[in-house]
């Protein structure tokens, strides 16, 4: 097991280098320099001052040196300061990251439970009414633009019914509430964003659970289990589901980049104070250090998710370790 984990970690080193290279070169090749913002704002800026600025940001050095210097700084999580307000990027991200992690972990949990339930019902009732009905819903979910679903749900649940708040993560009077009130308030704010950000992955994964479980149900050991006289419930939940859900670990982790990518649009719509909205605002304002910081952090979160998935998979399925 230890050798498997260490091999897996070694294997991610080239990936980490690749992530930093791609982030750096996207920013390097995009039109406009980070110094443009301060230069454009000051029409009277002299040639010397321009050069001084370029030197300050190290932009006069050859590209490999720029990359190396940047790499050395991000190794200690120094992403520089935001162009907008001068606050260190890392503290800006640190302030916003918990909200995004909360949203994404809740979404992952919701996706896992929802996809398993839908998949099980569809596989067990294959071809029946519930299979068709749920499959139809799943396809509908998979095809809905998430931002549109967000708008419609905001109208229905926020405006017409008035059940749920439509923006932010807590109410204005959050700090006056009791502990239970706080939890309730937070939950109410999270229901719509979590649901909307889960729809697409939930749909895709439930299809996966369905076909995986259907395959498993055809195996010989399932026949044996039935032959022993076990009920369908015991066979499905006790025997089949465990094996059918194994690949789900990997697929669930593969949906992490989609969730993080989706949070750029969903957090913006719901005015949710997370990293996604910070990233969107930074992109619009061309706040280079913030954009690069968020790019790196999201890529590393995904990588960590992938490593976790592989290790979890190996823990769950010993056959993997010896390959």
């Amino acid at each position, binding site marked *: 097991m230890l050798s498997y984990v260490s091999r897996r970690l070694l294997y991610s080193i080239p990936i980490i280098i690749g992530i930093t290279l791609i982030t750096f070169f996207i920013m390097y090749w995009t039109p406009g320099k980070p110094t443009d913002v301060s230069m454009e704002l000051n029409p009277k800026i002299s040639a010397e001052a321009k050069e001084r600025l370029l030197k300050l940001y190290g932009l006069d050095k050859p590209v490999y040196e720029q990359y190396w210097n940047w790499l050395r700084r991000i190794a200690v999580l120094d992403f520089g300061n935001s162009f907008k307000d001068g606050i260190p990027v890392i503290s800006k991200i640190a302030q916003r990251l918990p909200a995004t992690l909360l949203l994404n972990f809740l979404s992952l949990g919701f996706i896992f439970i929802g996809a398993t339930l839908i998949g099980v019902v569809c596989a067990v009732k294959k071809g029946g009414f519930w299979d068709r009905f749920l499959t139809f819903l799943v396809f509908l979910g998979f095809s*809905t*633009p998430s931002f549109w679903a967000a708008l419609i749900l905001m109208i229905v649940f926020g405006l017409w019914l008035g059940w749920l708040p439509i923006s932010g993560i807590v109410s204005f009077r959050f700090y006056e509430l009791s502990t239970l009130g706080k939890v309730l308030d937070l939950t109410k704010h999270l229901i719509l964003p979590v649901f909307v950000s889960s729809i697409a992955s939930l749909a895709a994964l439930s299809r996966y659970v369905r*076909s995986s479980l259907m395959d498993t149900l055809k195996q010989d050991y399932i026949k044996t289990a039935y032959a022993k006289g076990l009920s369908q419930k015991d066979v499905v939940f006790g025997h089949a589901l465990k094996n059918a859900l194994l690949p789900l670990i990997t697929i669930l982790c593969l949906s992490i*980049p989609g969730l993080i990518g989706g949070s750029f*649009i969903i957090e913006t719509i719901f005015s949710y104070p997370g990293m996604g909205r910070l990233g969107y605002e930074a992109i619009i304002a061309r706040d280079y250090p913030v954009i690069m910081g968020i790019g790196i952090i999201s890529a590393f979160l995904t990588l960590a998710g992938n490593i976790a998935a592989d290790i979890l998979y190996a823990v769950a399925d010993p056959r993997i370790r010896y390959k």
Partner: protein
Amino acid sequence: MKKLISDNSSFLGLIFIGLIILSAALAPLLTSYDPSAQDLTQRLLPPSFAHIFGTDDLGRDVFSRIIYGSRVSMTVGFFAVIMTLIIGATLGIVSGYFGGWIDSVLMRFTDIMLCFPTFFLILLIIAFFEPSIVNVMIVIGLTSWTGLARIVRSEVLSVREREFILASQMLAVSKKRLFFVHILPNIISPIIVYCAVGIGSAILTESGLSFLGLGVQPPTSSWGQILSGGKDYIYSAWWLSVFPGVIILFTVLSFNLIGETLRDIFDPKERV
């Protein structure tokens, strides 16, 4: 093709997409309103006989904006998938066919690209270059090939090991012939499925970008852009949000249903 029509859901999908393509082609015949003609006396009118989908905040006819917008959305969908296809299929084939260090390098590159949230990359590149139809297509193509490359690679790998390939190699079939006659026909089905679903997701991505104001720029109309204009009036003029959204939903749904039926047709295991 016969199976595609005999299946109810994909038949509906084909009809819907046919209608959208037809209305995109015949747009001037279907509506007498210019999609970008403003008429401030006709602002925010609810659906009526004169304007079946109502009018927007500048008095433009929403129906003709949707009809003309379908040109943009469909074009983006198709060309983005062609880009994806060129990059993803090529990399997958090269990787699977040649193997060795080429395979390792290409697959590590794919792994790296998979670590970045696609939508973030797209937003980033679009925002820094100019938002336009062409750029949107290119960027969607450049960022969404990873899944296809992986699928194609594994297909090539599994086909390459089959007996008939070994047999043709023994018969000294040329490499070109081996690839085009023996390997390609055997890996084409997952590629077709991927394309059907890919068009749908490219249309979704475009609408998301346009919704954020980073896609197709006014006065050209696209579905996402109509939605984007509608979000400011969501409480007073529901028709601005509901109609384009439903059209996007049904279009993407149609592509997904066709993709699903194709998957069933190509995969005999599920046919029972």
